[in-house]
């Protein structure tokens, strides 16, 4: 679903690259955590998928398409296939819950009857039944994030990118949000989530990709937030948490 081939992204000449020849494949329907310190390249990774930025070298494939070959007027079409959720929710404060979600459908020209049918369905999925008429400021942080998730998935994208969606939420609310993201993932959506939240990662036991200084230093299935395998340089093998060896090679070795 998402494939990075030797992708390097340099924002400023002479500065350390934000991403340094990253090669990675995320399959359809997978749930992947992207972990790493601030500045490790997580956000750049997500921006490249959205074609918000252009890779300095290497290629990014989304749904089988090299995003470098997508002309600027077709970028909206690419983005319709990708939902995005942020740490700061980014709701429209003067619109109620229903209107916030409906907005994502209106701007791509969905008919009013389809909107009226789909929005309540999606709100039910994220657990906000009966709160259609609330304004964002009347909602808790967790509820606001649910609205944001509903908006991100209302057009049924194949991919959901979440940039620290639980960064502003307490642990219990965060687990609720993870439940929603998991449910969306169960319905077949590929989820990529950048996070600092070790509890969540440890709880979920999904694939973990760790970035450091723009390089992939770990890629484990069913993993924990911190590596259980000591890093032994280039030749180390990748294992998942159960100790099984993975055939998924590290980027530099591809």
């Amino acid at each position, binding site marked *: 679903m998402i494939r990075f081939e030797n992708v390097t992204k340099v924002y400023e000449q002479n500065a350390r690259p934000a991403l340094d020849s990253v090669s990675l494949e995320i399959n359809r329907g997978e749930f992947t955590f992207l972990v790493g310190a601030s500045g490790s390249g997580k956000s750049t990774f997500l921006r490249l998928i*959205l074609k918000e930025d252009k890779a300095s070298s290497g290629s990014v494939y989304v749904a089988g398409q090299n995003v470098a070959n997508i002309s*600027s*007027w077709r970028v*909206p*079409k*690419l*983005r*319709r*296939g*990708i*939902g*995005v959720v942020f740490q700061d929710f*980014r709701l*429209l404060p003067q619109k109620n819950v229903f209107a916030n979600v409906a*907005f*994502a459908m*209106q*701007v*791509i*020209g*969905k*008919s*009013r009857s389809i909107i009226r049918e789909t929005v309540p369905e999606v709100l039910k999925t994220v657990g906000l039944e009966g709160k259609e008429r609330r304004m964002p400021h009347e909602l808790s942080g967790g509820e606001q994030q649910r609205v944001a998730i509903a*908006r*991100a998935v209302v*057009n049924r994208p194949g991919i959901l990118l979440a940039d620290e969606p639980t960064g502003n939420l307490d642990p219990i609310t965060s687990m609720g949000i993870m439940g929603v993201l998991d449910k969306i993932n169960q319905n077949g959506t590929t989820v990529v989530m950048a996070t600092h939240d070790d509890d969540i990662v440890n709880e979920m036991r999904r694939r973990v990709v760790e970035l450091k200084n723009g390089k992939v230093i770990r890629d484990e299935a069913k993993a924990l937030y911190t590596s259980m395998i000591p890093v032994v340089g280039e030749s180390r093998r990748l294992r998942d948490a159960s100790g099984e060896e993975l055939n998924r090679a590290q980027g530099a070795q591809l």
Partner: protein
Amino acid sequence: MRLLFILGEIGGGLRRNLSMVISVVLVTFVSLTFVGAAGMLQMQINQMKGYWYDKVQVAVFLCNDGSTAVGCASGSATKEQQDNLQAMLESPAIKPYINDFQFESQAEAYTHFKEQFSNSPIVDSVSEDQLPASFRINMKNPEKYEIISETFSSQPGVETVSDQRQVLERIFSWMNGASVAAIGVAAVMIFCAVLLITTTIRLSAFSRRRETGIMRLVGASKTVIQLPFILEGVIAAVVGALLASVTLWLMAHFWLNGDLSRQFLNTPFISSTQVLVIAPVLIALGAGLAGISSLLTLRRYLKV
């Protein structure tokens, strides 16, 4: 659905930026009024040229008692001098250049003068013998005025030869100057209008950056994102252009065809319907300027 959505966005944008929108309306209104006024002046000049050039005459004024010209040393023009001039006009040397001529005696000149200035107190202070008698000559080709002037100005009994066309040319060049000045003012005002539209669109884009950011992320097309902003500028400018058109029409209707045409009875003024020809030009100009400046602003300040 999308159309309704775009219209809603435009409405919201106009309401949120009301004071800026009003200033755009006013600046385009003033600038386009000047553009239109320049256009009206040109129309007026053409109208007057067409009307007057058929009627203008070359006048050979004869000496009267008060004349101070060199040819008038012997006082008022005599009957022989007058007959001599008439014979010259009918001679083969001059005749081919003129259509016809009339003699206007002092009495006739006084009558015409009274008609022309009937509203003015000047009539009371002028007596018949102060006005010169004249030959009024209609030229076949008004450009050949020099021939008459050279032949007659040195003749005894002739005070001066005047070409009415030259008087008109002075008026026209004055009107041309005025229309150039109007265009100059319009250019400055249009420049202001463009800057103001640019600023307004920038503010509008900034105040709606959340919406546009979300629109981008959910894959709204460039048109859906940008059109509301562009139309906002265009609508404001078109309202300004409409106001300018109405103002020009009112000017033509109540001033040119009202007051002025009563004061200057034999001057042909452009009609208010003729002014309506300018309106579409102004509207197109306003819409075009606003559209282009909004588009260029958005290209810089609204990433899609």
